[in-house]
């Protein structure tokens, strides 16, 4: 083999090696682009979400609705319906020991603290309204939804409602409204301001969450009795009607919870009124209290 031939072969080998190295570098660049592009795409999606939020107009709150028929239905659930439902699907009341009884106006007090934006409060209010209506007269109810950004659960509000009873005082505090306000602890505007005593009870028993129900300082409900998702897609009318039908899921949730709350109230009213406290529904729920 001549010198010229050797040189030509060497040059050819070097050219092939250079081409292979270039191909290798191109392959590395392609892989880096694929991986980097994938990661950047994910970051871009996050940025899009943040930009959408930044340019989004605040959600509008629908005006409260008054409806005498629905209000009548939820405050006058027949005793037979309560009795058929019994405990239903309700859970969650806790007894309190060693605390001074909570009273106002010389009567045992039932304290509720919640917020109009809150979906859990939205669920619990139906049962509370049904329960306290067995011991007195609840009026001035307005129909609302929880915050559109928080479940949009159909409910009632106790804001601007009134309650009279010879057995107990029902003190609802709709602490927060629906409009967002990042300067408050729960991120929504204040609607009603609780008293120092009420805040102390909330701090002591509620686990820093709403809704909070304190039944004469003898029983507390730091949470909810049933899932709000059960009623999330129903209308006010459907829920009010469902409360009349003991076989419905709505009645098992709401009327069942109302029976448990009623049983706890009966403890602090010392069994008054008798027709409520000795009813089959309340008696069945006593075991859950």
């Amino acid at each position: 083999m001549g010198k010229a031939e050797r040189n030509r072969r060497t040059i050819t080998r070097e050219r092939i090696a250079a081409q292979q190295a270039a191909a290798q570098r191109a392959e590395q660049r392609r892989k880096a682009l694929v991986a980097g592009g994938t990661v950047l795409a994910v970051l871009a999606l996050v940025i899009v979400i943040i930009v959408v939020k930044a340019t989004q107009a605040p959600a509008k709150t629908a005006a409260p609705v008054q409806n005498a028929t629905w209000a009548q239905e939820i405050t006058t659930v027949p005793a037979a319906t309560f009795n058929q439902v019994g405990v239903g699907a309700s859970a969650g009341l806790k007894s309190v020991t060693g605390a001074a009884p909570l009273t106002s106006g010389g009567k045992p007090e039932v304290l509720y603290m919640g917020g109009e934006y809150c979906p859990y409060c939205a669920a619990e209010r139906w049962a509370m309204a049904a329960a306290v209506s067995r011991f007195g007269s609840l009026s001035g109810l307005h129909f609302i939804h929880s915050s559109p950004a928080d479940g949009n659960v159909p409910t009632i509000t106790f804001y601007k409602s009134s309650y009279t009873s010879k057995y107990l005082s029902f003190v609802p505090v709709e602490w927060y409204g629906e409009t967002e306000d990042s300067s408050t602890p729960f991120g929504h505007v204040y609607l009603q301001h609780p008293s120092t005593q009420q805040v102390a009870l909330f701090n002591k028993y509620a686990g820093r969450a709403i809704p909070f129900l304190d039944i004469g300082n003898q029983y507390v409900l730091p949470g909810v009795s049933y899932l709000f998702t059960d009623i999330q897609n129903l209308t006010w009318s459907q829920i009010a009607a469902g409360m009349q039908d003991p076989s419905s899921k709505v009645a098992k949730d709401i009327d069942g919870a109302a029976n448990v709350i009623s049983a706890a109230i009966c403890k602090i009213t010392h069994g008054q009124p008798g027709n409520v406290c000795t009813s089959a529904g309340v008696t069945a729920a006593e075991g859950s209290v």
Partner: protein
Amino acid sequence: MADRKASTSRRSGPQSARSSQQAAAPAATKSGFGFLPSVGILPLATWLLSLYGLGASIYLTIAHYDTHVLLVCSDKGVINCAEVTTSSQSMVFGVLPVAVLGLAFYVFIVAINSPWAWRLQRPAAGGQLSAWSGNLTTSIMWARLISVVVGMGFVLYLIYAEVIQIGAICLWCTSVHVATFLIFALIVFDSSFNWGKPQPTGRG
């Protein structure tokens, strides 16, 4: 895939370069962590991030079920863990807590990103892969990639839920999201550069 492996293994240049990289990796991780198999910095980083994600997920799950356990977190303004963890979006289909889902995800991720799982994929210099362990390696790589892609997708949904639907940010959740993103980025880069490459089969 098998064809690609075979054809790649015939190329001596890249393989020898990779073998030298993998031979160097053990020295970087063995010091101080003698009980762990030597796998390299990237796998070790994915495992440490996975362990962090698992710890945070356990904390969030406990806080979800025990109302006496409060998250160490601001509860005012945009940074509000309680608002996020008690929102309707904190439950999947209204029954399965997101915290539990995150915990299950990280139990799996910790296992599949463990040095022992990576070791199956990257045996030490001089180690050999049988046909069986080769199939297992491919399965692990697929499982790892699919799981982080699914996890990242769910994280994007959770970020959407926090930012758009709830309007509040949970710092603990966000720290888990960041960990998931970092694991995702590392796995994507690793898969991109090492997918289908033959494992070292020679000695030394």
